[in-house]
């Protein structure tokens, strides 16, 4: 904001003191000042403009700008301009940049307009005291008695409604993933079902017996199928165990048909390690018994399954 002032009254008073102006000297009416802004913080710069209209044969300057020590003003820079006006007169202008200190309201700094002409004996001086003032504000609130932490930046709130479609999409994806995983698990469980696998393999061995499989080889397969079944069904390394170790494991797990299973494995051991040669009928009978035992073990497991703790076993 800018402020312009008419200082005619003050100039008239000064004219009386000076004893009257020379005919060519500027009168107070020719001098205008402006300053902006009209209020500022301490230390900020004030743009102070002094304009003097005068006869173009006169030389004019501004001197004794009341700044510096003892005043709240400090000049940081000045520039002067001179131009001829259309009415034949001239205009002298000085732009001063002034740093302002000291809180409160201060009258703009006074100055002296010095004018003169070569034909006149000496320069004439016109002291100007502007009536306008500038207000200097403190950088901080004077009521503050303690240091306050700097408040964190408050970011603009995220528009929550934008999340809704993302959440819905995620939920749909999650649900779809869950259903697919369940489906895959069920399918895998079906394919890997040890009972199903064991029964299928036992039937296959029986079929192969009819096609000429040696009964001793049938017993070896029977042993492997049973041990694989036990390994998958009861989760222990039956394939790496001897029959005695398997018997101990089954006893520890209290498997209902353990005795019959071990008898079958013992029979197979005799065939495998004692070079016993069973008949084809004997082998068929053992395969049928094995099928029944596998099914019985599976049924017992299903009956036990409602309790959550047993889930890991089967």
């Amino acid at each position, binding site marked *: 904001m800018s402020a312009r002032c008419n200082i005619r009254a003050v100039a008239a008073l000064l004219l009386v003191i000076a004893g009257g102006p020379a005919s060519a000297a500027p009168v107070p009416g020719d001098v205008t000042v402006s300053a902006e802004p009209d209020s500022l913080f301490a230390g900020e710069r004030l743009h102070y403009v002094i304009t003097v209209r005068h006869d173009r044969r006169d030389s004019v300057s501004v001197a004794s700008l009341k700044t510096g020590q003892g005043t709240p003003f400090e000049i940081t820079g000045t520039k002067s301009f001179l131009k001829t006006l259309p009415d034949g007169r001239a205009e002298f202008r000085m732009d001063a940049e002034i740093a302002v200190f000291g809180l409160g309201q201060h009258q703009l700094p006074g100055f002296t307009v010095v004018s003169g002409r070569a034909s006149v004996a000496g320069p004439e001086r016109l002291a100007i005291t502007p009536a306008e003032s500038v207000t200097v504000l403190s950088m901080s609130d004077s009521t503050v008695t303690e240091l306050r932490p700097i408040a964190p930046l408050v970011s603009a709130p995220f528009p929550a409604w934008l999340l809704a479609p993302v959440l819905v999409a995620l939920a749909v994806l999650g649900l779809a993933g869950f259903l697919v995983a369940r489906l895959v698990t069920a399918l895998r469980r079906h394919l890997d079902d040890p009972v199903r696998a064991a029964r299928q393999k036992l039937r296959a061995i029986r079929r192969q017996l009819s096609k000429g499989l040696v009964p001793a080889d049938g017993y070896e397969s029977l042993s492997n199928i049973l041990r694989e079944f036990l390994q998958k069904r009861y989760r222990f390394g039956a394939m790496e165990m001897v029959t*005695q*170790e398997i018997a101990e494991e089954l006893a520890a797990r209290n498997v209902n048909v353990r005795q019959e299973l071990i008898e079958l494995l013992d029979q197979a051991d005799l065939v495998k390690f004692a070079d016993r040669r069973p008949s084809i009928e004997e082998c068929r009978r053992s395969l049928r018994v094995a099928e029944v035992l596998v099914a019985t073990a599976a049924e017992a497991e299903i009956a036990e399954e409602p309790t959550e703790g047993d889930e890991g076993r089967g």
Partner: protein
Amino acid sequence: MKQETELETLGRQIVEESAFIDRARQVLSTTIIGQTAVIDKVMIALLANGHLLLEGVPGLAKTLIVRTFASAMNLSFHRIQFTPDMLPADLIGTMIYNPKTMEFHPRRGPVFANVILADEINRSPAKVQSALLEAMQEKQVTIGDVTYPLGEPFMVLATQNPVEHEGTYMLPEAQLDRFMMKIIVEYPTFEEELEVMQRASAVQAPIEMRAVVQPEEVFRSRSLVDRIYVDQRVQRYIVDLVTATRSPERYGLGNLSTMIEYGASPRASIFLLLASKAHAFLQRRAYATPEDVKSIVYEVLRHRVRPSYEAEAENMKPEEFIRSILEHVQVP
């Protein structure tokens, strides 16, 4: 069918000939409390014509077991305490000059006995150890220019103290390999120790051990052990176990390849087979099963598998490697 009949016949013979085992066990149990597993392993070594390395802290009746065993089997017994200043001649014997006849005569050393207890074998330097191990391998010693066969059966049971290593000469791996089994003699149970204490505190003289087995019975049993049937599947299982100590990665045990400096030699396979057959004999069976192999696999392999520097840093024992191998190698 012929093979089946042969095995049945062999089975009956085994049952008849193995009667001495019960007699020996019974008479040994009057002197030795507990340690039945150690006694069984000693019997296996005797039947399989092997030698044993016993390891255990002092005071676990190692010497008593061996001495009593030899007495019960009616076998001559010598205990040799190995010391750092021992010479090979102190073990195998030397030529002594007879000034009357002006001739050198051989003087046989303590190695001439059926059962030798080489106590603290690692206290003697390598040349003495070598002299004994050579006798173990060759079953004969040469004194002067004459070679003398050692007694039959000839069995060496060497002891090592696992705690004390100062002033000892560790047996090189090549020599360790000569021992069929390494047996760790454990502390007795509370009840066993109680009984040991009560018996040892008796003032009366200990019961004199009487021989209940004749060496001929051992020889006959050995010939039956030789005839015990070992199926190809079991033989393959044995080789699988031994190979797994050398190439664990082939059996899904890649983590062990950096832990084992080197694995067991083919001699381990041979001893594992022999010991499995002897174990089957103790079970009165005419055929060996993987169960027999598993029963003696720790004893046969533990001194043949050397842990690497990394394994030693992690305080891993050969027994842990063997357990991992057993858990990964499929039983036939």
